[in-house]
């Protein structure tokens, strides 16, 4: 380990924080959540597989984490490969080895500890399984796979290999989300009985256009074909193809639907979805999707509505609202979209504010009753509150820190492949429900490995 005292303190702090809290988060802990402290050397040797947009986001987040040595980079696109190698060089002062093919990388590179997989969804499962079978710990971006069987294979490979496999549902390691669940929902029970969940990610047409590319940088067709793409256009826009991804409901929705089950501590019993190609007529995947999940919880039934639109921002923002009899928590990765409201009939939250659990929002001006509106039909204005603190890092950083602490044997994963599967399994049934226009009552087989 680094002998710098400040570095040690920071790591110790991270270790205590993540390890302590994650123990309470992981439900029904499986056997494989923590590495056994192997590789006690100073640095964790990492290979980066996939250096596209998300790969670069993860790299930037990792560049703030001490004790990582980036040994190799792998990407089939020379543009991403060279760019990724240059970024590593800029960070750690030497050029890592570059590979187009992951098999060649795994056969050549010696001494790797972990791999970061951020390839397109349909490659997640093959790449993750290969790496686990090669004896490496894996951090893989969500969605686990474009098929539920691909996701199942990842869980089996993790459990067979005994290696760590963290799935990139980064909210699971986000201090703001963890605080809301552990302190506000479970601890102080500020929502009362949660009766409904409402979440959305609305994205404007301008942000949902096909990704353009410089024709000079086109990958040779034989390479594209070898790696499962019909064309450069399909390579750049794999998210819109049914054979390569799950579409917007998995691309954007999976992060948020993950929170439903995590916060409720339950799996849904059914889903009913609707979707269509309302604007992007030629895309294989729906551009707008809505889904209703039904849950049975010890407190009672909960319906969770989720909407993902790639055709309008409708004012912007993305969030998950947990609506209860006494309060509503609207949480988002962005603090600007986060707000908490107390129902008028709920007990006072003054003591929570005094003890620092919540901050009070400035009260909005009281609206004058409009003529003709019957006052007794409208709910009284809810009192607004905020979280007491923020996340001072890039959102993915905490999740990666949790992964690397687990590799060092100092923490449990907050979202290993089995827990991620339990969260993602219902999502694989959204598109089938929307296509058939029928509700799906889940059977244990549909949601299990």
């Amino acid at each position, binding site marked *: 380990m680094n002998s710098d005292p400040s570095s040690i303190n920071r790591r110790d702090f991270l270790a205590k924080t993540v390890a302590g809290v994650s123990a309470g988060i992981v439900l029904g802990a499986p056997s494989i959540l923590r590495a056994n402290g192997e590789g006690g050397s100073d640095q964790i040797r990492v290979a980066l597989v996939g250096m596209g947009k998300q790969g670069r986001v993860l790299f930037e987040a990792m560049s703030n984490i001490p004790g990582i040595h980036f040994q190799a980079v792998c990407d089939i696109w020379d543009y991403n490969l060279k760019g990724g190698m240059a970024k590593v060089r800029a960070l750690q002062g030497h050029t890592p080895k570059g590979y187009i093919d992951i098999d060649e990388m795994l056969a050549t590179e010696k001494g790797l500890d972990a791999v970061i997989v951020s390839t397109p969804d349909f490659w997640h499962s093959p790449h993750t399984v290969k790496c686990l079978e090669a004896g490496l710990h894996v951090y893989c971006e969500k969605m686990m796979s474009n098929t539920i069987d691909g996701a199942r294979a990842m869980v089996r490979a993790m459990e067979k290999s005994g290696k760590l496999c963290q799935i990139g549902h980064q909210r699971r390691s986000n*201090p703001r989300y963890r*605080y809301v669940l552990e*302190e506000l929902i479970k601890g102080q029970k500020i929502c009362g009985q949660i009766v409904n969940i409402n979440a959305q990610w609305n994205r404007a047409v301008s942000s949902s256009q096909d990704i353009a590319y*410089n024709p000079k940088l086109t990958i040779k067709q034989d390479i594209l074909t070898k790696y499962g793409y019909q064309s450069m256009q399909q390579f750049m826009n794999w998210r819109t193809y049914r054979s390569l991804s799950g579409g917007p409901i998995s691309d954007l929705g999976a992060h948020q639907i993950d929170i439903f089950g995590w916060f409720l501590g339950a799996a849904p019993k059914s889903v009913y979805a609707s979707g269509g190609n309302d604007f992007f007529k030629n895309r294989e995947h729906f551009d707008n999707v809505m889904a209703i999940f039904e849950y049975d919880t010890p407190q009672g039934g909960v319906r969770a509505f989720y909407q993902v639109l790639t055709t309008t921002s409708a004012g912007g923002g993305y969030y998950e609202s947990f609506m209860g009899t006494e309060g509503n928590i609207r949480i988002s990765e962005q*603090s600007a979209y986060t707000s908490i409201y107390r129902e008028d009939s709920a007990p006072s939250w003054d003591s929570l504010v005094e*003890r620092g659990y919540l901050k009070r929002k400035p009260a909005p001006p009281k609206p004058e009753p409009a003529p003709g509106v019957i006052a007794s039909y409208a709910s009284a204005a809810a009192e607004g509150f905020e*979280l*007491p603190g*923020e*996340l001072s890092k890039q959102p993915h950083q905490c999740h990666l820190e949790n992964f690397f602490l687990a590799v060092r044997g100092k923490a449990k994963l907050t979202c290993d492949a089995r827990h991620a599967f339990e969260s993602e399994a219902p999502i694989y049934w959204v598109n089938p429900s929307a296509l058939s226009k029928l509700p799906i009552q889940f059977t244990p087989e549909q949601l299990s490995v």
Partner: protein
Amino acid sequence: MSNESCCANPKLGLVYGSLLLRLWLAVRAIQTGLEKFSGTKAADQVVNINGKANEYGLTAAGSIKNYALTNYHGVPEALMKKFEEEPLMLKSALALYDKMLGPALLLLGVTILLGIASRTSLFLLGLLYISLTWGLILIKQDEGVSWLGVHIILVVMALMLSENNRFALLKKW
């Protein structure tokens, strides 16, 4: 009479004008160059909840601006991506430009501020602004092009006033 006092040093206004323009252009270039080394660091003060530091890692809101060599970014990342997609933009030239833009602004700003080869420095600064203009034309940033056009006018005015340039360390060029 006021006219007589004015005429006693008829070029004083031009000297002051030249000096002000030189200072403006120098400050503009130096601070723009310095900002290439700026970044923000999130506040990391841990929030107290129920009388003790929270164990989740929640911190006070806000961020702190800082300057460091490691923050350096010549061409902003958002623009870099757009430039890379332009067929007329040479990738190797873009990488070089990205590296030299900040230092070039700082160097030219300092030479203009101190009056070291003022005319040549102003000419080179004008060329730098033209190069920026070309990039912004490529990615259709018309407002930025207009803004740089104003800068070019100021550089030309400074060159026209250069015979009134005083307080210079090296006047030759």
